[in-house]
Each structure stands twice: as structure tokens, then as C-alpha cells.
């Protein structure tokens, strides 16, 4: 099930997300791993009163099979990952 607010990402968009993950040295809060697979993105600016327009929560799943809490997310601006080539 994909909720209606989420945006499915293309492969190139997912690749850009991983580039941002690497740039920021983003790691899994549960196991410390830096390897992730990218899922959908949730636009938060309209829905949440504390978020700016164009801000997304991009779903990341930790690639470590032993991770106790593999589902996490990274906050990115639209211009950082969400365009088509």
C-alpha cells in the first residue's frame, strides 16, 4: 500500500538521494550503517505546520540485515533530488 501523499521516485532521483546521504554522512540511528535503499518521498510543507514548502521526508531502509530498526528517513529539499533528467 502506498499512501496518496507519497511520491514514488525514479531511479535517477533515488540515486541523487543516496548522493545526498553520502554528502551528509547520514547514518542509521539504530546500527550506524551508511548503506540504504531509497523508497518513497513525503512532501511535508503543506501537511505539517512546522515544515517549509518543498521539504520532503525521503524514506530510507537500512541495508544492514541485522539492524533492529531499519526504517528511517532523511529530510531533503525538492531541489536536492526531485527533478527528472
Amino acid at each position, binding site marked *: *500500500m*502506498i*499512501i*496518496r*501523499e*507519497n511520491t514514488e521516485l525514479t531511479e535517477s532521483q533515488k540515486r541523487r538521494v543516496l548522493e545526498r546521504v553520502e554528502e551528509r554522512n547520514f547514518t542509521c540511528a539504530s546500527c550506524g550503517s551508511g548503506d540504504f535503499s531509497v*523508497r*518513497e*518521498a*513525503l512532501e*511535508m*510543507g*503543506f*501537511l*505539517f*505546520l*512546522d*515544515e517549509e*514548502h518543498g521539504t520532503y*521526508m*525521503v*524514506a530510507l*531502509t537500512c541495508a544492514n540485515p541485522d539492524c533492529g530498526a531499519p*526504517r*528511517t*528517513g532523511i529530510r531533503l529539499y525538492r531541489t536536492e533530488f526531485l527533478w527528472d533528467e
Partner: protein
Amino acid sequence: MPELDFPAWIRITHFINIIFISFLIRSGIEILGTHPKLYWNDDSKPGSEWARFTRKVMPKDKLYDILDEEEDYSSAVAMPGHKQLGLGRHWHFVSVLGWILCGLTYVILLFATGEWHRFWPYSWAIFPQAFEDMVTYLSFDLPPTLPGEPYNALQKLTYGAVVFILAPFQILTGAVQSPAIEARFPWYVRMFGGRQWARSLHFLALLAFLVFIVIHLFMVVVHGFGKETAKMIFGAEVYPAAATIIALAALAGLVVLHWAATKYTLAYPRSTQRILGKVTNNTRRVLLHRLKSRQDYSKADLTPEHRVNGKPPTSEEYKIMAAHNFADYTLEVGGLVERPMIFTLEDLLTFPTKQTQRVLHNCVQGWTSIGEWTGVPLRQIVELVRPRPEVRFICFWTMQDSGRDEPSAPGSGQFYEVIDLHLAYHEQTILAYEMNGGPLPITHGAPLRLRLETQVGFKMAKWIERIEFLDDYSHIGEGMGGWREDNVYYDKDVEI
């Protein structure tokens, strides 16, 4: 025809009626101010209102809810004023009960004593006669009373219309606005053209009452204030000077009563909630609490853009969970049960029973929308966890922290609502995970919300994370049966 005059019971009910109707009008304005827009459609589509009493403009690029649209009316016009819908509702419902009892007493005595003749138009000739009376008034003269009667033709028709048409119409259109009555008798709502038609008509009838009161008072002055008030004080045109003094003192007393009631309400809201709530809650429990929803709107009736109330949780955990399509969501069901359980979203989606219903949603503020909701019947969850014999209530704990997520509302803390256990057994009480054929939107409570069709919207907790079975709720929050009951003085049982 018996001799028609002004017996004591007419004078007493007239005086009591003034008190109740003045409270009804002010508390009605308070209720209107909470959603100061009127519609001719049950979608309450933003921009489609035919009347608005606000200058607020809502943003298009940010989620707003009904609390953002609420107006802060002065206590000079609203009871109690200052965005106190819960307290305004208490006053409105207590006043309406008093007003109806007073009206029933009046009508019963009217027929028992033969005084009903004062309103009965015996001949069609009374209509042209009433027109002539109006022309006489407009010519700055006074028309004569009908032979052997206390009123002229215009007065007779006007008073008769107020007593036998306007007042019952106001009661009937008020009843349409009860979610329990709407849910149990959808045909009754359709009879008035829909819920928002009824709300609009209720408002127009209020205007009619106001116009009547202004003209009535003006005419009392025109006919002779002392002479006319003497009829309603002494029962005859005697002692006009004394009548004038007593009438003016009574009017001053009415103003003082309103001032004192308003001051007390704003200074002691909890006490007001408890005292007035005792009257209204008991009446509601007797008349409306057992009604069960039998709604089945068609797909064509569905509102394209269902209105929203409440803002989604802003916690990081919620946002990450939403981005993952709520894959990590769990619903904990516990408290006083023999078999506490935890359900994943997948458990709920694959539950053996999947129930869909198309129903009218009633917000406590007055707007409506029609939606299709799909989910698990709550009674089946209850049967699985097996509440202990002492259980009487169910508490729905949500992921919303009102202080953090709902700055338009006063108060803080985790949002929760308590319902009576027996409501869980209603056929259309479900835990919904779908809306209008798709996953439940975040704005409407994703991943799980309650649908309880005989109550107003705020009882249908959204973003539910935990369900707790209770024998008592006095230890939760302020002990009033819900976050809104604790913080904005709403009633726990809201069938109207």
C-alpha cells in the same frame, strides 16, 4: 369564544420565554462564530458559502483547519463570547430545553383554557384586514383590535405565526443538526434539503425572531409602553406608571442576568461545564444516546474535498512512518481486557471483516462533508480482546500532541477521547484505514481513525496509536472524558 385576556400563566410564560430566548440567541451566535459561514450544500465546500461573518482568508498552500477559521466574537453579542464553543453549546442546549418546556406549558394551557382562540383565524377576511392594519401603522395610526379579542388582525396573525410556525420550525431545524438524529433518520435531513440547508434555515429563522422582537418592542412603545406592559404585568391596562417602572426594572434585570451569567461562565468554565452539563447530558442520554446510525449515502453524494479538522502529528517518528507508508505502525489494544493485543497495519488490512460505509460527517463547529470510510468493525476488536466485566469506557490515545500540533487550540498534551463501551457495538462504529476508496489520508487521521457516526467529529479520534479499556476515566487529564472536554469544555457525549 371565551373572553380572551391576559391570565397569569400567559404573563409568566411570556416573561420566562424572554429569558430563554435571549440566551438562545446569544449562545446561537457563539456557535455560529465557530464556523461563521453558511452553505446550501452538505459538502461545505470552501468558497461556496452564501453568507460569511468573517474576514479571515485561509491559505491555499498550507493545511488549515476549522479552528483557524473560528471567529472571536464579543461577549456583547455572543454567549459567552471569545471562542468558547463548548460553553456556548452548554448554554444553548440548556436554554433550548427550558424554552421548549416553557413553550409546551404555554401551548397546553392555551388549548386547555380556550385561549387558543386568540390566534385562530376564523375567516379569510382576516388577511386583507391584516394588510389594512399594516397600512394603518404605516400611516402613523393605530388599527383597532378585533371585536372581543385582545389583538388586531395583524397582531393575531403575527403572534400566531411566531408561536405555531416559527418556534416549531426553529426546533425542527435545530434537531436536524444532531448527528444522532441525522444518522438514525437520514430521511429527516433530506426533508429539509440537507444538513447545511437546515443550518442555514435555522439561521434565517433566528433573523426572523430578531426582526419580530425589534418590531414587537417598537409596537409596544407605539401603542403606549405603560399601557401595553401593564397587560403583561397586571393582566389589564391598569397602573401604567407602575407597569413602566416594573418593565424597565425587569429589562435591567435581564441585562444583569446576562452579564452575571457571562462573567461566571468565563471565570469558572469548568464549573459551568459541570453544572449545565448535568442537565444537557442526562437529557441527551435519555433521548439520543441509544440511536444507531443507518446511513448509506450514494457514491454520487461523496464530497470531492472532504473538509479537515485537526492537524497531523509533527513528530519525526510520525513523518518517517508516513514516508514508509506506515509499515512500522502498530495499534496497541489493552487496559482492562483479558487478552491485550497488538495489531500491525497489515493485520488490520487483512482482518476477516472489511466494512465500508458512506456517511455524513458532522463537525462540532457546524460544517459537514460526506465520505466513504472502510475499516474494521470496532465490535470485532472488542470481542477479540475480551473486556473485563467492569469495563464501561474505551479511550483512544492518538499520536497528536495538541500543544505542539494544534496551536489554534488552547491547552496541551496528548490528544485522547473516551467513548462509552456500548457505542463500540454499533454497526457503523469502525476503525477506518481507507477513505473514498484509497488509503486514509494523513489529514484525515492516517493510518487509523475512529468512525462513530452518531457523534460529532471530534470524538472520532484520528492518528490512533493505542486503545485502552477503562472502568473509569476520571484519572485521565482533567477527568472530563477527552482532550476537548478537558481543555475547551465540550461534552463527552455529543449526539448533538
